[in-house]
């Protein structure tokens, strides 16, 4: 589920990244208020746990293994705000130190896996478990449902982000510039995988851990709800809506910035687009905002072979020049090091 760099267009990644900024700020403020100076060690351990839980291999009946995401569990115990930060930090460490998930895709990945998943899981868990006893069966059933639904919401968001890429970004002749599949091709496989195996494993494991807590470590289950967060639930929900609104406002920016000509969709594609994009937005983006056109100049097609030779030659010359520059820099660097006596 980690989207690597290169799948999404810069516009999508930028939009989601910008949308995540207020979420991160709000989460930091929220956890600072609830946890006071305890926040640094608690969030660190939450993040370390979020990273390490992915190391647990859960065996499947066919002999293969999958790993749990664990986000729902963290959200249930530490609350959605702390979970958002914890999982984001785990994602940053995976991207920076282990090359898992892209750097520019961090905004998108944290939106899907940290923010959306934590909030869906937490509020669903609260809604179903209600005011039930810590040891009640409603708690672990709620945990199972919360884990199942939140994982699927997260998968759906990922599928939608990937699926809008070919609609927004392709060349005039239909070549996909980023992820090649449309919504109707990304959503079913993603959801089938997560509605069945992924979701079932996540639900099973989350429920089993909550049951373990009920037996062995009850204070953990009362951790977040006792930090007087319940009356603030309404306020937090409003903030969520504000963030969603910001994202809604930001997403057309991605549409406007596309280089794909909007008049040239095949009829089926057009139908698909109108099915998903509000008419007003389609109108706004209708003017041809072709910044980087991929058309060939008329008359040049015949001489492509001739011109491409020229291109290859100049490209090789350019690369040689870069090589020279880098080489000179490394020489300069070692010279500077010698003279400064390090």
């Amino acid at each position, binding site marked *: 589920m980690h989207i*690597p*760099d*290169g*799948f999404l*267009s810069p516009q999508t*990644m930028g939009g989601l990244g910008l949308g995540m900024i207020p979420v*991160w700020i709000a989460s930091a403020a929220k956890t600072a208020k609830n946890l006071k*100076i305890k926040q*640094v*060690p608690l969030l660190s*351990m*939450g*993040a370390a746990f979020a*990273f*390490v839980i992915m*190391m*647990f291999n859960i*065996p499947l009946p066919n002999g*293969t*293994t999958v790993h*749990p995401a664990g986000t729902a*569990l963290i959200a249930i115990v530490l609350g959605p705000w702390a979970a958002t930060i914890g999982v984001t930090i785990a994602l940053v*460490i995976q*991207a*920076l*130190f*282990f090359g898992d998930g*892209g*750097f*520019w895709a961090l905004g998108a990945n944290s939106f899907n896996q940290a923010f959306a998943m934590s909030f869906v899981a937490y509020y669903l868990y609260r809604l179903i478990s209600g005011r039930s006893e810590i040891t009640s069966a409603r708690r672990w059933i709620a945990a199972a449902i919360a884990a199942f639904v939140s994982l699927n919401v997260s998968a759906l968001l990922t599928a939608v982000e990937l699926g809008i890429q*070919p609609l927004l970004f392709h060349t005039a*002749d239909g*070549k*996909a*510039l980023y992820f*090649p*599949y449309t919504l109707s091709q990304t959503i079913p496989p993603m959801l089938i995988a997560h509605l069945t195996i992924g979701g079932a494993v996540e639900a099973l*494991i989350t429920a*089993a*851990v909550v049951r*373990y*807590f009920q037996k*062995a*470590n009850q204070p*953990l289950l009362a951790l977040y709800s006792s930090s007087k967060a319940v009356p603030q639930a309404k306020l937090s929900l409003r903030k969520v809506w504000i963030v969603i609104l910001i994202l809604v406002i930001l997403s057309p920016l991605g549409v406007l910035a596309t280089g794909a000509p909007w008049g040239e969709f095949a009829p089926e594609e057009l139908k698909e687009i109108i099915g998903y994009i509000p008419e007003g937005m389609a109108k706004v983006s209708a003017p041809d905002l072709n910044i*980087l056109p*991929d*058309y*060939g100049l008329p008359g*040049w097609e015949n001489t*492509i072979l001739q011109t*491409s030779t020229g291109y290859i030659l100049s*490209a090789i010359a350019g690369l040689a020049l870069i090589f020279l*520059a*880098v*080489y000179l*820099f490394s020489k*300069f*660097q070692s010279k*500077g090091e010698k003279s400064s006596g390090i």
Partner: protein
Amino acid sequence: MASDKTIPDWLLEDRQAVLCRCGGVGIRKKSNHLEKTINDVATVLKESVFSDRLANNRGMMQKVDPRVRLVTVVFLLAITALVRHIPTLVGLYAFTLMLAYFSRVPLVFFIKRVWLFVPFFTGLIVLPSIFNVFRPGDPLINLISFGHPVRIGLIKLPETIAITRQGLTGAGLIILRVGVSVSLAVLLTITSRWAELLKALRIFFIPRIFIMVLEMTYRYIFLLLTVITDMFVARKSRSVGEENAREKRSFLSAGIGALFGKAYYLSEEIHDAMISRGYTGEAKTISVLRMTVQDVIWIILILLIGLFFLGGDFIFGRTTGAF
């Protein structure tokens, strides 16, 4: 075999001990989940130790100020995301290899690390898109011709199944782009010590509190990894025979639960330790990073090279559009 009464029955049973899988029995069992987890943890530890060792090689990238290194790699990643033609990406990859070479990164390792897994994941995902079944386009190689559109249940197949030009170039584009992006990210990772990289993050206006949490997280990940290794080795060394699904499940969920409890308990301990050392909620950091003339030249160099690729890509798109 059954008539051979010198061998007790229980030894001939299918439920064999899973202690050693080294024999040439012929049937290769899929690896046990305990073992897999232990191996996965070991891989993570090995990789981080290995990349820290490479980061201590005093190559070109390693000598650049970590902040500058981070920003320039992020800039190059953005260029990689923006370009739209295969030749430009090939050029960018050649440039990345150059950087790796001058940074004393073993090239074979560097290439293998990226290209052993990118084709498997990205390649497998984009493979269907080269056929006109999934994306319409100009046919390049016709595979099967039905003579008329075919319907199989919900799936509608076109008259001729073909590999399309658009599909092929689009797939090439995305595989290369992911490959170059991953290469750049790997290059940054293996030329930087994590402490440097964390310090470097500060220039992105990330609040100090986040950096502090990040530092502490990175430190404690290794502790927790050791904890689960101990947990799994202890379990494995006590188990004989195959566990059933229920046993596996209860061990894993109790393990996760215990790990959570331990992590929470640790956070309390760390908090107490911090308080007793005078922590008041205010994070102080000692910054020793200094920019040099070399770093400035490096920034200009990377900026020019980035613009060269972007400009080249633009001109390429203007004039040909063939790829």
